[in-house]
């Protein structure tokens, strides 16, 4: 038995710790999506509004992977552990590849020809891509059948709960499940890896140089197009990872999840200072926390308002965000 038991600390403290767990886990997910926004903005100053919807398509891709190997609806309950592990591993391998490739393709087909056009042209195109993705999401939803039955294209649907919501901290009177553990175990190494990548690798240095001054970077012999491509692929892959985590933990997907979560992630990126990678992570965690504490102490109907109130306050006093250093021309 652990020394610190549920009875040994007050219910108020217990709730507080629980809200922190809830907030930080969902915050990590927002951070993962926010990275895609912030990296693309850092390099080409484009707010890629389609990013949230790319995340949504990732969810459907993950579901397709599962349906291909026969893990849908009722089949999950009867499946062995090996099959479940296979499903999870396949999703984590294939979805980032899909999302990275999709993001690359969008850049190639839509944003690249607009690189020298006024910034607003690319921005409006991004909104258009977001709508296209949402429609694709609806069609995709209808294509994946549930135990052979057709489903409503527009309604949310249940994602197979491959990871059980078994509580690990029952002794402490807290709720921290395998699903929460999954978020932490996948997200933290990715963030550390990304930081190392951007700081120490050649490509990472090239990315930072391009972000600082594209013209000077080109003069130094950096292939800017390659850097931009890499940014889109990496940002997309991160969204793909986020899709799988989201699908496995929230276990409900639909064509609108990209909009909701994308909005929070975008807010996280702005809060932390758009273009700044640690800022996006900080922003994501902060938003998750504010939401959970708001749900707990104020009332769920006010949580969103609270998040945006804090965003406004921070932007009033630090217009470039928490960790944003230099303010460049924003769209």
């Amino acid at each position: 038995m652990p020394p610190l038991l549920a009875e040994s600390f007050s219910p108020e403290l217990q709730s507080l710790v629980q809200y922190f767990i809830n907030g930080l886990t969902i915050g990590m997910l927002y951070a993962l999506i926010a990275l895609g926004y912030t990296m693309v903005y850092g390099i080409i100053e484009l707010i890629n509004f389609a990013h949230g919807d790319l995340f949504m398509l990732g969810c459907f891709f993950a579901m397709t992977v599962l349906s291909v190997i026969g893990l849908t609806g009722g089949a999950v309950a009867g499946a062995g552990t090996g099959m479940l592990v296979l499903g999870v591993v396949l999703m984590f391998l294939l979805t980032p590849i899909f999302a990275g490739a999709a993001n690359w393709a969008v850049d190639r087909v839509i944003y690249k020809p607009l690189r020298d056009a006024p910034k607003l042209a690319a921005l409006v195109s991004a909104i258009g891509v977001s709508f296209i993705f949402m429609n694709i999401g609806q069609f995709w939803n209808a294509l994946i059948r549930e135990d052979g039955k057709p489903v409503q294209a527009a309604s949310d649907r249940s994602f197979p709960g491959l990871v059980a919501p078994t509580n690990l901290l029952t002794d402490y009177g807290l709720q921290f499940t395998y699903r929460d553990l999954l978020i932490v175990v996948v997200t933290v190494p990715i963030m550390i890896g990304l930081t190392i990548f951007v700081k120490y690798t050649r490509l990472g240095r090239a990315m930072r140089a391009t972000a600082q001054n594209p013209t000077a970077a080109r003069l130094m012999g950096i292939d800017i197009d390659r850097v931009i491509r890499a940014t889109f692929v990496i940002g997309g892959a991160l969204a793909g990872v986020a899709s799988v985590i989201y699908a496995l933990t929230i276990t409900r997907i639909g064509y609108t999840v990209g909009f909701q979560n994308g909005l929070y992630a975008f807010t996280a990126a702005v809060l932390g200072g758009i273009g700044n990678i640690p800022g996006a992570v900080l922003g994501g965690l902060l938003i998750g926390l504010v939401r959970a504490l708001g749900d707990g102490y104020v009332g769920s109907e006010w949580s969103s308002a609270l998040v945006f109130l804090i965003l406004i306050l921070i932007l009033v006093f630090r217009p470039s965000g928490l960790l944003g250093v230099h303010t460049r021309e924003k769209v």
Partner: protein
Amino acid sequence: MRLQSILSGVVCVALFALGSGCNKPAGGDPKTIKIVSSLPRTGSAKGQTDTIVNGIKLALEEADYKVGDFKIEFLDLDDATAIDGKWTSERETANAEQAVKDPDVMAYIGPYNSGAAAVSMPILNKADLLMISPAATWPGLTKPGKGAPGEPEKHRPAGKVNFTRVVPADDLQGPLGADWAKEMGVKKVYILHDNEVYGKGIAELFRDRAKELKLQVLGFDAVDYKQSDFRTKMGDIAKEAPDLLYFGGTSQSGAPQIVKEMVNVGLAGKTKLMVPDGCFEDAFVTGAGVENFGKLETFVTFGGLPSNQLTGKGKEFYDKYKAKYNIEPEAYAVYGYEAGKVALKAIEKAARKDRAAILAAALSIRDFDGAMGKWSFDENGDTSLTTMSGSKIDARGVPQFVKPLTLK
């Protein structure tokens, strides 16, 4: 055909904006009467509204799209947008205005949502246009003293009744739900709602009745259904260990997630869930995950009887529907059918193409021999039907009829 009508509507609206005379009362073909419906045709309520529109079409087809000398046309309008995934007040307003300005429109079937009804009622009221809702159940739309202050008068700027509904209002459903909970032996309830007109309204009615019945109400809170999860709230509820959680909302406003969260925090087996008719559809089960209904006892209340429990004309409807569309009718199909029948009956009784006459004819319907038995409209435009039913969702995700619920 449909595209043409829509186009002509659009052209008409455009011409009207230019100041030319599309607004003349006797435009179009004097022998053509249009019935429009305004329902959320995109977004997650599509499953329910498909079935309603199928029901309406079935009613019109039975009459061969004719009443006396009049040719009937049907126009299926959408009050939702793909972006919102649900009804919007802009679309509902536009639909209502389109109906008012088209002189051939004599009946307006819809809307689906009570919130949308509050938007279109004042517009259509001034035009004497008959509204027949197959689904909007907020009591304040029709019943004095049962809704917010100022209701229902504020929905009727012209001072007369033009809104009718063929579905029993929530002032029955909420309390009957509480009665049923008491019968199940529930002692402690926790009530959540989605903060919308329908969900919050029905949750309040449930709460009031629960208090009367001396059930212990542990809490009454809103959830923000646009969030991906309600984990914090549900964690707090789990500590209170209620016997039953009542959620006032629909399958579009968070009900599936409530099921998931209850299972996640380990409430399944300890706490039952009860939801109102807004969740009486497939989308609720697909969203929540069939497997969860094997763990969590879930009860649904619904106005009237499920289609497969209907007898007489209702049974005929059920068989015809299944034969024609080759699928089980969803819960509201029969109300769509009944609304279509009422529109036809009103036109037949009025026997002329005149909005006020058709409205008066509809309101005077008594002892209507419909698919749900014999019923009448009362002075508020409400159906006299009071039978509700309680169903339990089984482990395969299929609602199984448990018992009829009637007011004691």
